[in-house]
């Protein structure tokens, strides 16, 4: 298993390199550059800027310079947020994004699994309908609207939670952002869980267990839970990477310092350094997450073997 993990990690390096290369050149192909804005800059000033960021060199040279820096863990300067280097921006935003993403992940997964099991056991009764409705809300309502609605009700009208902003260590500032982020994820998990639990509960070995006179709860906990989790677990990897990369809207609405927005805004600003830095980081993160999911998967289903 260890050598399997090691092989997976090593194979991630060429994948990351290819992704960075593609990203580097595709970004340069996009029209416009980091210095195009509301007003055109005089040619001599553009020349100064290009020189400062080595953008006057041939593209291949720039690419090699970037890769060389990358090998030394230097992600280069941000061309738009000049007050910080890309590494600094990631260092400030990353702990927050991870914290927000993992909190939402844990909360949403727990709620999703419990809700899914309840809905499956109470299939076609009122708890099932209520849960389906709540789930559908999370899937149908887009996050920017959900964010604005929660802000309005809980921030402006009820004043239960702050409508936005970031204060070091404040839990109350996180309630609304985590809810917005977690809801769709909880919804998907609960639907998967419900479907797979219904299927497992109808299978032969569960019928056998029940016919042996084992109690309903014990059957659920000991026999049905583990196999029913398999589709959920295979979703958790992509789900978590979605939570970690998809925090853009939540960060924007609530004014939070994560890195999700760099991914999108930096691309629009043609901030080459920042887009690449964020991309490199996300590639590594997603590769690691997928690896972990595969390991858990194998633990849940002994039929899966490492090759």
């Amino acid at each position: 298993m260890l050598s399997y993990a090691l092989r997976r990690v090593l194979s991630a390096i060429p994948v990351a390199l290819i992704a960075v290369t593609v990203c580097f050149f595709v970004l340069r192909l996009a029209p416009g550059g980091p210095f195009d804005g509301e007003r055109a800059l005089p040619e001599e000033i553009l020349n100064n800027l290009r020189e400062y960021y080595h953008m006057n060199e041939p593209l291949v040279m720039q690419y090699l310079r970037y890769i060389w820096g990358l090998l030394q863990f230097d992600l280069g300067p941000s061309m738009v947020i000049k007050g910080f280097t890309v590494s600094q921006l990631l260092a400030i935003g990353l702990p927050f994004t991870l914290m927000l993403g993992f909190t939402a992940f844990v909360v949403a997964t727990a709620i999703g699994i419990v809700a899914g099991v309840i809905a499956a056991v109470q299939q076609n009764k009122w708890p099932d309908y209520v849960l389906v409705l709540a789930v559908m809300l999370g899937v149908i309502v887009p996050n920017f609207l959900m964010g604005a609605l929660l802000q309005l009700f809980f921030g402006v009208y009820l004043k239960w939670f702050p409508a936005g902003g970031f204060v070091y260590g404040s839990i109350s500032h996180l309630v609304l952002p985590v809810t917005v982020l977690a809801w769709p994820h909880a919804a998907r998990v609960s639907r998967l869980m419900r479907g797979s639990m219904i299927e497992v509960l109808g299978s032969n070995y569960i019928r056998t267990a029940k016919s042996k006179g084992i109690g309903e709860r014990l059957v659920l906990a000991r026999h049905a839970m583990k196999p029913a989790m398999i589709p959920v677990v295979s979703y958790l990897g992509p789900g978590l990477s979605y939570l970690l990369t998809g925090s853009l809207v939540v960060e924007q609405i609530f004014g939070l310092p994560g890195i999700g927005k760099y991914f999108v805004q930096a691309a629009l600003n043609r901030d080459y350094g920042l887009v690449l830095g964020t991309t490199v980081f996300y590639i590594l993160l997603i590769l690691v997450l997928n690896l972990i999911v595969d390991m858990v998967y194998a633990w849940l289903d002994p039929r899966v073997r490492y090759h």
Partner: protein
Amino acid sequence: MKFQTLVKATAIAAAFALGAASMAQAATLHLHNGGDPRSLDPQRVSGNWEDRPVSDYIEGLMTLDAKGGAILGQAASYSVSDDGLVYTFKIRDNAMWSDGEPVVAEDFVLGLQRLEDPKTAAEYAYLQYFIDNAEAINSGEITDLDELGVKAIDDKTVEITLNAPTPYFLQALTHYSAYPVPSHVVAEYGDDWASIDHLVANGPFKPVEWVPGSYIHSVKNDKYYAADTVKLDDVYYYITDDDNAALQRYRAGEIDILSNFASDQYQLLQDQYPGQAHVFPFLGVYYYVINQTKEPFTDVRVRKALSIAINRKVIGPDILGTGELPAYGWVPPGTSNYEGEQYMPAYADETYDERVAEAAKLMEELGYTAENPLTVQLRYNTNENHQRIAVAISAMWEPIHVKVELFNSDVSTHYDALTAGDFEVGRAGWIMDYDDPSNMLDLLKSGTGNNYGRYANAEYDELLAKAANEQDLVKRAGYMHAAEKIAMDEFGVIPIYYYVAKWVISPKVSGFEDNAVDRHLVRYISKSE
């Protein structure tokens, strides 16, 4: 990764783990500021969301009063030579940086030298090109920075030499591009002097914390020479591009001042928060450029038809809903150094039906009819308001036999296309850098980078050249009025409306004054709890 950022990262994580609480104290201003500043280095920024935190911590020789006019800042007095070329400033004896070091003439020399030094790659280097040798240094023709027309005569005397008399020079000194830098800190840290850990302030507030994507926190600088007049203890400049989210936070009482709001929220603000929305004109124009290197836009009749067929009066009040003033001329009303009557074309007084009839006739002369319309590509950068205006104008152009193809793209792509001349009609906007008509009129000079439509008229260029060398303000204004008339009569560009600034000010806040330059130093603002 630097040690300090590591410490900061760990601190954030630790703070969350511990769940420590922190709360705002009295006399704290919460200001919604817009996007993430690129830097706090005055020579490396160029946006109004950067101007606000920067201008509250660094003060130039001249600074602004609450109405946006130039007043003495770090300078205690100044004198001007008879030819208007040499300005001598005496720095205040009690001007000092927040670390206790005195502000010296060298700080101003270094600030302007950094601005023009090609190595700084300052976007706004051109704003101070009227300083002797500035342009030559910035373009690399002169490599010795000491050749710049800024000299330290002694520790407390700065002498600035201009290459032409410049009536708006004192106003230009209030711009952050001309701010001093603490030479003793720059000597130690180089370009890194303006990082949050190293910077020092000579203005009323000092930034102490910057969380990218969230806020900048500045506290009152007790070493500021007028610190006793500063009423606030600290300021939070909140970072968010989402105006609606900021408005929610205002409504929840978390933010005291919004520096912008979405036009479609104006009605709600007027109904529920009467008197709190401040909408006032400031120096900027929203306009369409016509590519005059492409057929048939080379023909003045086409440009005229397109321009007069726009019903400008409905755009501000009805389409945007915030009452932007219709623009028929190029220089916004209220601009300084512009004695004389505002440009107003004859068509402005005609009824809209008359104008449409005239425009349709012009197009018919050129062979365009309802069956054979002129197809025009109209480009704009993706934004709800730009889209609404583009759709409305497409409809206004329909009766004059123009079929519009709308084309939108993100802002970088949009301006790249405008700069490259790869468009027919395109949306643009200009917010004046300083309060002088030359800043507007220079945009239509032949060969200027921002002259996207490639408007060219030798007489126009000549009048501007004359104005640039004229010391008499009335004569100078006369040349510029004549130039404006030429460009507008030839429809070199289609002005649509003059910008309005849109602020929301809590009733708890006083000292905020609407002004035409739309710059508001926090030192004049106070807040009651």
